[in-house]
């Protein structure tokens, strides 16, 4: 049995009188894609923010490589190897791909008493890392704004991987994308997983989850409804769990099974 890269045990989080998380347990193994499913308001966002150090859990434990850790801020989580790619805040459109890729960790070159941004190195690495992910840039100084939504997600993922992420949290990376772009992002997730990185893939789209997931955890009203391995559960069951059963089944009947 491999030790999980990160394990969250019975996480509870309260905001004043609101109980956002009420005992959530999730573990991520090296090289697996763990899908976190849940409808809006299920507590997905609160949970990943706890994992990435934005929120501190009210109760519960976070273990990394079997040892308990506490993150005071996102920076600490990042240095421990937890990288988060947020859906809409991943990239700055007006800046070049290179500037975005290295933002916050710019490589420097010394010239006498001064230090300069080493664009030679930065551009070369950016082009190479992007090529590895299957994105072929026109030039590393093209603005991120010229890339498609899927490509932007991929730049952010490539960046996290290059800077040594062990656990990569993807917050609804496919929710705003078209069919083709979605499959590109899912292919990228597959590439990342093969490097031994643990991927946490948050989505409310069961088909996207089924395409790449190794394990599935469903959140509903701040609780885990259990974790299933690939092959142990059908898409319809996941869908029902997410929606809390009954109602969706009825809806699906009246809509002819298209949801």
């Amino acid at each position, binding site marked *: 049995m491999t030790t999980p890269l990160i394990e969250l045990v019975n996480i509870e989080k309260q905001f004043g009188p609101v109980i956002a998380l009420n005992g959530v347990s999730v573990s991520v193994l090296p090289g697996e894609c763990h899908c976190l499913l849940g409808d809006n308001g299920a507590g997905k966002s609160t949970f990943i923010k706890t994992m990435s150090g934005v929120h501190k859990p009210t109760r519960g434990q976070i273990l990394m490589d079997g040892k308990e850790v506490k993150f005071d801020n996102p920076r600490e989580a990042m240095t421990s190897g937890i990288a988060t790619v947020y859906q809409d805040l991943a990239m700055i459109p007006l*800046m070049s791909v290179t500037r975005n890729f290295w933002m916050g960790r710019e490589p420097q070159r010394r010239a006498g008493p001064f230090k300069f941004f080493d664009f030679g190195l930065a551009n070369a690495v950016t082009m190479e890392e992007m090529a590895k992910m299957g994105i072929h840039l026109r030039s590393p100084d093209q603005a991120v*704004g010229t890339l498609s939504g899927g490509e932007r997600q991929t730049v952010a993922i490539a960046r996290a991987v290059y800077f040594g992420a062990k656990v990569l949290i993807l917050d609804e990376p496919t929710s705003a994308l078209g069919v083709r772009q979605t499959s590109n992002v899912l292919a990228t997730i597959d590439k990342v997983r093969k490097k031994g990185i643990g991927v946490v893939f948050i989505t409310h789209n069961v088909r996207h989850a089924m395409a790449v997931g190794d394990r599935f955890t469903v959140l509903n009203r701040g609780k885990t409804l259990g974790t299933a391995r690939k092959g142990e559960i059908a898409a319809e069951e996941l869908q029902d769990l997410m929606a809390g059963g009954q109602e969706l089944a009825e809806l699906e009947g009246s809509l002819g099974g298209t949801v």
Partner: protein
Amino acid sequence: MAETSGQTPEQITAAIKDERLREISPLRKALIRPELGAICGTVLVFAFFLSIAGSSGMFAPEGIINWGTVSAQFAIIAVGACLLMIAGEFDLSVGSMIGFSGIIIALMTVQWGFPAWVSILTAFALALLIGALNGYLVIKTGLPSFIVTLAFLYILRGLTIFISITTTRKTIIGGVREAAEGDPIAWLFGGKVFNGLFVWLADMGVVGKFVAGPKAGQPVVEGIPMLLIWALLLIIVCHILLTRTRFGNWIFAAGGDAQAARYVGVPVDRVKILMFMLTAFCATVFATCQVMEFGSAAADRGLLKEFEAIISVVIGGALLTGGYGSVVGAALGALIFGVVQQGLFFAGVESSLFRVFLGVILLLAVILNTYIRRMITGER
């Protein structure tokens, strides 16, 4: 796709050209840079004045020094405003800061008898402090910098007049030049350099000499004013800082999307506060040069300078929303400003038309910038 491992980055770059990407025309490529509008504007303005005022002495050495100095004044404050705007904020208190710093220097030197260098350093220290306070308030309250610095526009101007009136019963304090004679720092702001060069140029007949009066035999251009040197220095240093350093990347990031920048560990608050301090520093450089040149300070100096700085920056291609712009562009914006203001004078045109011109060029610049931004971000 060919296997790319084991190749140099250049080969990879060459190998992975996407067949679906249409080659972009060189014109379009050239358009996608912030300075383009300012470069065109500069060429147009020079062509215009060469044709209508070419024989008026505007392009003789003393004429060049004349509009060069005016442009340098605009450039000094534009450089600070430029970096601050790229970092996503405004400073409307620049003009009031100019008046404030000037009065502090004159008051301390003339009225209270401090050596000029003590007064100058005190003015800089106070300005940096006020700049930091501006920045701190903007960051802590989360209010738009437009409002916070608008408050300081009034607070500083009011304080300046108050201090000046209560201590000297005047709003103009003179006699600074005499008091600053032989000072170890004051010459850095008021002096002229390369005198020898101009004496030599005059001997060679390139530069005219005074033919009568107390200065007879001396060249009409004494030297390069320190103001010009400051402007060039600030332009070069800030341009390199913005485009070639890690900190420059943080400035773009802070203005482009502060939250995204914070998520990857960019110290956005520190960057913004430092940029507020830079605009205050630039305003004080301007004020000190002016005080040393005129030998006096007045409480109403620097009126409307904040807008002139912002206009220069916008003509230079920066976006009002932050995250995009260029120091070289802002400097060209300042040059356009200076050449037109003085050029209308050389051409004998009614000077009130200057403001008409300003408004028109500002409008054109903003329209062009919006178009350029759409091209960069691929919006339709």
